[in-house]
């Protein structure tokens, strides 16, 4: 099937198998390997991308379902050479260790803060429960998200 998808501001027209997963389309067809696959079952959130303004687990979405949509992956969160306040806050606060869950965490956080610019720590933890991290124990991720919220507000 032919699909047209705008990813990080660039429009792609591609012929894809109807069964191809969006995450494979992004990683294998477009070479955007910043989006990761962690569990194949929508549990871990490593594959989260933003599709038309909402976060989507791209391992559980078909590429054809993305036809006509606008997608932001980790590669498009900020202009080249710059960092989004969320990326900056993850760096400043040691909100990552191995980095494998980080793309999903950052994409999720961007949306979380759009919907709730001043979250409490509890709201942050609740908002991130679809994203697993095995390294950080979440402590510094929560700290990073709260710092990003403050940076975005000021």
């Amino acid at each position, binding site marked *: 099937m032919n699909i047209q998808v705008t990813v990080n501001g660039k429009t792609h027209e591609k012929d894809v198998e109807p069964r191809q997963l969006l995450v494979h389309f992004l990683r294998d067809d477009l070479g955007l390997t910043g989006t990761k696959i962690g569990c194949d079952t929508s549990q871990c959130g490593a594959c989260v991308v933003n599709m038309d303004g909402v976060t989507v687990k791209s391992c559980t979405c078909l590429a054809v379902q993305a036809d006509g949509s606008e997608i932001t992956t980790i590669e498009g969160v900020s202009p080249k050479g710059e960092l989004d306040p969320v990326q900056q806050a993850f760096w400043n606060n040691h909100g990552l260790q191995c980095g494998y869950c980080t793309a999903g965490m950052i994409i999720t956080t961007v949306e979380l803060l759009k919907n709730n610019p001043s979250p409490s720590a509890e709201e942050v933890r609740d908002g991130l429960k679809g994203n697993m991290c095995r*390294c950080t124990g979440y402590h510094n991720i929560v700290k990073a998200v709260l710092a990003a919220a403050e940076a975005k507000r000021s």
Partner: protein
Amino acid sequence: MTTRIFGSGIRRREDPRLITGAATYTDDVKLPGMAYAAMLRSPHAHAKITSIDTSAAAVAPGVVAVYTGADTDGVLSPIPCAWIPPDSDVKAVAHPALAKDVVRYQGDAVAVVVAENRYQAEDALELINVNYEILKAVISPEAAMQPGAPQLHEDAPNNQAFHWVAEGGDTDAAFASADVIVKDTIIHQRLIPNAIEPRSAVANYTPAMQELTLWSTSQNPHIVRFLASLVTGIAEHKIRVIATEVGGGFGSKIAMYADEMIASFCSMQLGRPVKWTATRSEGYQATIHGRDHVEYVEMAATKDGKITAVRTKVYAGMGAYLSTAGPGIPTILHGLMYCGPYDIGATKADIYGVFNNATPVDAYRGAGRPEATFLVERLVDLLAVELGTDPAELRRKNLIPKFEDGHDVASGLTYDSGDYEPVLDMVLNHVDYQALRQEQAHSREHGHYMGIGVTCYTEICGLGPSQVAGAVGFGGGLWESAIVRFHPTGKVHVFVGVSPHGQGEETTFAQVISDELGVDVDDVAVIHGDTSNTPMGWGTYGSRTTVVGAGAMALAARKVKEKARLLAAHLLEAAEADVEYEDGKFFVKGSPDQSKSIQEIATMANVAWNMPEGMEPGLEASAFYDPPNFVFPFGAHVAVVDVDPDNGHIEIRRYVAVDDCGPQINPMIVEGQVHGGVVQGAGQVLWEGVIYDENGQLLTGSMTDYAVPRAHMVPNIETLSTETRSPHNPLGVKGVGETGTIGSTATIYNAVMDALRPLGITGIDMPLTPEKVWRAIRQQQGS
């Protein structure tokens, strides 16, 4: 005054590539002409293979090749176990890469399909027809040793993989003369490590050169190269293993796995690159599990609370085959650690390694030491209850007094340094322990179940002296090496054999070199993870990377600095003895304006226009560091929990960790290690656990069924520290990668049991899920 960056919590230099999606993990590697492999795994835990028909799969769309055990047999040597503890009758049974006659756990690979893309490879798996004759399976390690149990291997009667006994002091005498004996039965359930990056391999064999390049999700690429040469028959110098970006390991990426060798085999057969990446469910079956102990444990003490002995009988599940380091975990890393931080005169570990029809068991964060700490700390709490004394004070009474340069314990180990009482004081003061106990007494009067867990631990890490490694049957060395190289512009490259995978050593190692050589930290780059450009290394595990790897690096830097000093003396036309160093500058004693910066020296050494007679050009050095002993970090942790008796839900209200890992290169990174480790311990106590049914079917087969802690389930972790130097390594450092897990597992469990004590509950098997806790409470209440 020299400014040191050692000790500064600077941001990690790894992060910019990780927060922008620019890093390259193994599954991100795409090579021209690459094909994709998918494994057919046994759906049965124990069965004979009576026939395999791959003919339909072989002609399926896109399929390049299908291989079975008949193809790999005789080409790939069995996957080796590399840790064979001596005097323990280890049955190192053959572990074929692809099972040929018998499958022994659900997930045992029986065939591989290589196709043009991963979808076609997965499709073709469905077309392979395997006939099995199903055999009875056994899962519990204790049941596996009982008469009549299904037998996994002909040459391992009663499924006994090994029997290892270690006794220090006279435990029988101590128990015979004890005033008090407390006992417990502990089941350390199987755990799945759950690195968020699944295992993956890209094998690229070039027939023209007869060389294999293997991208591998490994914690120890040099060990993979070493073992891959044994398995594939390709000479070690013709193999390059690359593991530069690895998405977490927690021990699960130490082992040499069959899958990476099968991918290599496919590439060798086809002469084109082959990628294999595990799905999560596949990883749950085919990536090592941790723990799996059934333990009978007991402690002897005097009536005034002096602990005199600890002894155990442990059945340690090994899974269907011995994994790379499997037998070393419940023995050396467990059975020698029963003294903990306490002055205990006698310990005895009686450990049976047992084959069971389950995924092989190997190192998972803490690896043997959480189990040791858990049983000691559990017994101390039971002793406190028995004696009617405060558990914190009972611990204090038994702590080994401060020592700075070696203390022999009953098991035969010599702890390097320790000062245990201050960490206990610090954690108790920080939480205001007395106030917590008062609050608990008050809340109990109102029917609330609040619990306080206090744990003291010491652990063994920084593995370790190579001579000891040899003596305990470890099939390799445990030293490290590093190369420090100045470039003509005064910038520095450091090449290390260790292979971090999320711990941030690109940053912390640069901090060390910055101080050692007086160069800006940003002028240092640390290279790791690729066997083609790094010196030999034995890997990142056992909290050894900073202790041993940075030790080697510091020694190399000191050699570089000494050569620079000699060259400076030549350039300054001064006697070598008169040249001094401060802050990156060499100067003539008494004339600080007559100086040369280390960068100027580096330039001259590289152009070599004016060298002293006999001095080689260049400014670099390599060093090998073999530590004289292990290191023994220690700490005291407190957890405060609330248990809801109506639904069994446990809330960790507060968690405080005081850890002493010696001088901290980067406190921010140290805290991060503790945070993650504590939550993994919490995971074991409260939620995680592998469940097999009686036929050996893995019921917790995906992240939907296996409860990895999520953000909303855990609290913030409060971290504090003291600093006790190790007397024996170049930087005085101790490891911190596993302390969180080693401390927290016992602490949280003890806190919950403390909460439930008024109900008369003394033990519930982990994980303490709400259902189990609720049932235990109901049972006690008789309703």
